[in-house]
């Protein structure tokens, strides 16, 4: 059996690339295109796991974002001229709240602007949901450098705790129902919360003892350079922060940016190298970075480049005007970017038996 799993890093590159395009756009046609691409790839490439629910959860969240944003837009948005769809009763606010308008005429233009702004966030959410389905967080953590191993395990345990707590809630509610006690209302909540928290704590202790008994955190496993590499990592990250501040700020601190970023990157790289060399911990069947992983990662980079090119050719294509309202259009670089983003369907389809 050949290892056909695609490196989780590649999936993250692909999804983050699409999310980056979405974050820069309010073009509804483009955003709809991205959602289509994401759903098609997830449908073709996922392997069954309990994480499969997560896309549905993210999609539901995205729909809520759009609905909520549109409602807010209808009630609170500033009144701009345009095609009036309907008129809400207007409230007069006291002097201290001047500048906030409530009610009044709702125009098509403001509605479209609201939907577009919300859709941007919604599509980003769907991209994140998709990558959660394609590469479980646990799998990404397995590929982290050795120095981050401990933090990675903590995150994995935290991630599994949430679904377990949900299962615990339903278990406790069932038990209360069996004993004829209320499961709703304040009394129900108090009666449920305490056993759920107790259960979570108990499980955490059981898990901790099980991990310990199986050698987690052994003295010789972390290697001799552990503290040195952690310290270096800290210095490196701090330096990168300083550099990033320099890039964003104006004035004399700008000159600091280049050296600080370079120093930070070097420190981080050294730290990871040190930790990797010193660690006695080994990896079982690490997911290799294959040609298809490169293809998947590139298919996420191409749309970003395409969107930059498209914006260069026509600055209005990513964010079409809503005042006056114009029909969003697609240009050939954008279409090309979306088509390339479908590549994973060809290079990394799920085995037919797993579908």
């Amino acid at each position: 059996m050949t290892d056909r799993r695609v490196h989780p890093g590649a999936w993250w590159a692909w999804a983050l690339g699409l999310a980056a395009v979405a974050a820069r756009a309010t073009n509804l046609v483009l955003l709809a295109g991205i959602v289509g691409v994401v759903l098609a790839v997830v449908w073709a490439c996922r392997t069954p796991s309990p994480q499969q629910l997560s896309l549905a959860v993210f999609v539901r969240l995205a729909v809520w974002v759009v609905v909520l944003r549109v409602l807010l837009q209808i009630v609170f948005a500033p009144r701009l001229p345009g095609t009036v769809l309907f008129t809400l009763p207007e409230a007069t606010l006291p002097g201290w709240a001047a500048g906030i308008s409530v009610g009044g005429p709702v125009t098509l233009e403001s509605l479209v602007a609201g939907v577009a702004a919300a859709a941007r966030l919604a599509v980003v959410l769907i991209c994140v949901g998709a990558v959660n389905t394609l590469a479980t967080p646990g799998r990404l953590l397995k590929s982290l450098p050795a120095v981050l191993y401990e933090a990675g395990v903590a995150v994995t345990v935290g991630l599994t705790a949430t679904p377990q707590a949900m299962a615990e809630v339903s278990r406790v509610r069932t038990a209360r129902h069996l004993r004829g006690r209320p499961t709703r209302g304040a009394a129900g909540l108090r009666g449920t919360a305490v056993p759920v928290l107790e259960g979570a704590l108990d499980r955490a202790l059981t898990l901790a003892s099980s991990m310990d008994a199986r050698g987690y955190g052994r003295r010789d496993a972390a290697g001799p350079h552990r503290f040195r590499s952690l310290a270096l990592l800290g210095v490196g990250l701090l330096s990168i922060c300083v550099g990033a501040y320099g890039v964003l700020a104006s004035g004399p601190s700008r000159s600091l940016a280049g050296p600080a970023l370079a120093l930070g990157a070097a420190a981080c790289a050294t730290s990871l190298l040190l930790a990797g060399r010193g660690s006695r911990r080994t990896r079982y069947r690490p997911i290799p970075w294959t040609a298809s992983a490169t293809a998947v990662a590139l298919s996420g980079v191409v749309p970003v480049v395409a969107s930059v090119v498209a914006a260069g050719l026509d600055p209005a294509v990513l964010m079409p005007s809503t005042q006056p309202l114009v029909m969003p259009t697609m240009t050939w670089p954008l279409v090309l970017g979306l088509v390339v983003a479908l590549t994973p369907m060809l290079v990394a389809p799920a085995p037919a038996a797993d579908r």
Partner: protein
Amino acid sequence: MIPIRVDNVGLTYAGAMSPVLSHVELSVEEGELLVVVGPTGSGKTTLLRLMCGLVPHFSGGTLTGQVTVGGRSTSDVPPRELADIVGFVPQNPADSFVCDTVEEELAYVMENLGVAPVVMRRRVEETLDLLGIADLRTREIWSLSGGQQQRVAIAAVLTASPRILILDEPTSSLDPAAAEDVLAAIGRLVHDVGLTVVMSEHRLERVIHLADRVVVVDGPVPRVSDPAVAMIDSPVAPPVVHLGRAMGWDPLPLSIRDARRAAASLRVALEGREPEGWAPAGPESAGSSSARAEPVVEAAGLVVRYGSRAAVSGLDLAAGAGEIVAIMGRNGSGKSTLLATLAGLMTPQHGRVRIDGEDPARLTGGERIQRIGLVPQDPGALLYSSTVDHECRTADREGHLEPGATRAVLDLLVPDIDPDVHPRDLSEGQRLGLALAVVTAHHPVVLLLDEPTRGLDDLAKDRLAELMGELSRSGTCVIFATHDTELASRSAHRIVVLADGEVIADGPARDVACHSTVFAPQVARIMAPAAWLTVAEVVEAVGART
């Protein structure tokens, strides 16, 4: 080097008045299978956890004396430094898994130990084959059955190639066939691989014949002896031993094979006689037809699906007042689903359920607890007071019972529980006793028990059987799902066997139990082809003859 040496060890938990264990002298020899037996809450788990350092590192308490594992003292090093010498499989493995898939779980301990990737790969493959779980390698752990999870948990510590394996009740939640699989795997590890194994087990009938030595934990000072010697006066013993003791067989037989040879003359003496000492009281003697005429539990054409999988498909079941019905079948055959549906926790896609003429899904509050009592597989879920005493008093109040009624039931089941202790700190068996007391004190019309014997010792099982009998005489219909063939054949009037959500056998306990290779109790196997089920009825028949 002696694998494990326990040297004059005593342990007192924080806040406890008296030690759990004291003056423990024990050395586990190379390559032996040591079985730890003892009543519920006697400190078996504590003793096992002492041997891998989890006690006192993860439990607190004061340790005196010294435990040495592979030459390292557990007071000097934490359990993680012993991971390459000793592997520990806890009682409920589901809570102890770290990874998502079987293969990753098997590799986890080796990653921590820094085993080379090539060796890791080889050991994973070998261990998968050794425990017969190669077909599960890519499965997600949550999707496995109890028996599969147990074998994965054993495999997950075996890959570190420890010299000692410690197992806390490895078969307690398994059906007879799955338990046989797990025990066969353990036997293979002892005989073929030369591993040293220490395990605790309540259902002694499954392991006693495999044991090299037995540790009896009954009171703070455990005794170590040869199985045949230990069984002469052990407080817990399998039916084969009870029969041997009653018949005065010497040496005491421990396996069915030995007992069958010893019982040759007994079988001849009892030939042609029908068991009569033990006749199920209740509907059978009152005429089962009248009980069936007005069933309090009625299920017709039940279909319950999870997604596309049918857990229960087209099942009919009726039970009358005062009837005791045992539901048996392998893990995942639909027993728990059936009980949950009868209790109204799940709504069937097809068919209907009536409990005492009512739809159970609609019952709430007082109406519910007076009709249906269900003790789930995890009895702790039913308890949420901070002390045992408070739990009992709450149950009294809610059921409008006399003060002390619940406590009285509890004392009958598991006596001497400290009223001020938190239910969480009880042993598994004590907790079940408390949950049973809380539910049965209301005298529900129908009592449903899901795996009531998990973690219970023989004495507690006897008392459970007594309690069921008493409830049955007072008109309660008891339906329990169990893997315990001994309890089912001893206390049930009827046994219903499920497979794939369908009833494949339904009849008087004696007929179903004696005609099954899997569900036959030990006495039936010894006395076959005659249909004797319990030690008591054989003893009575012999007594009546002489």
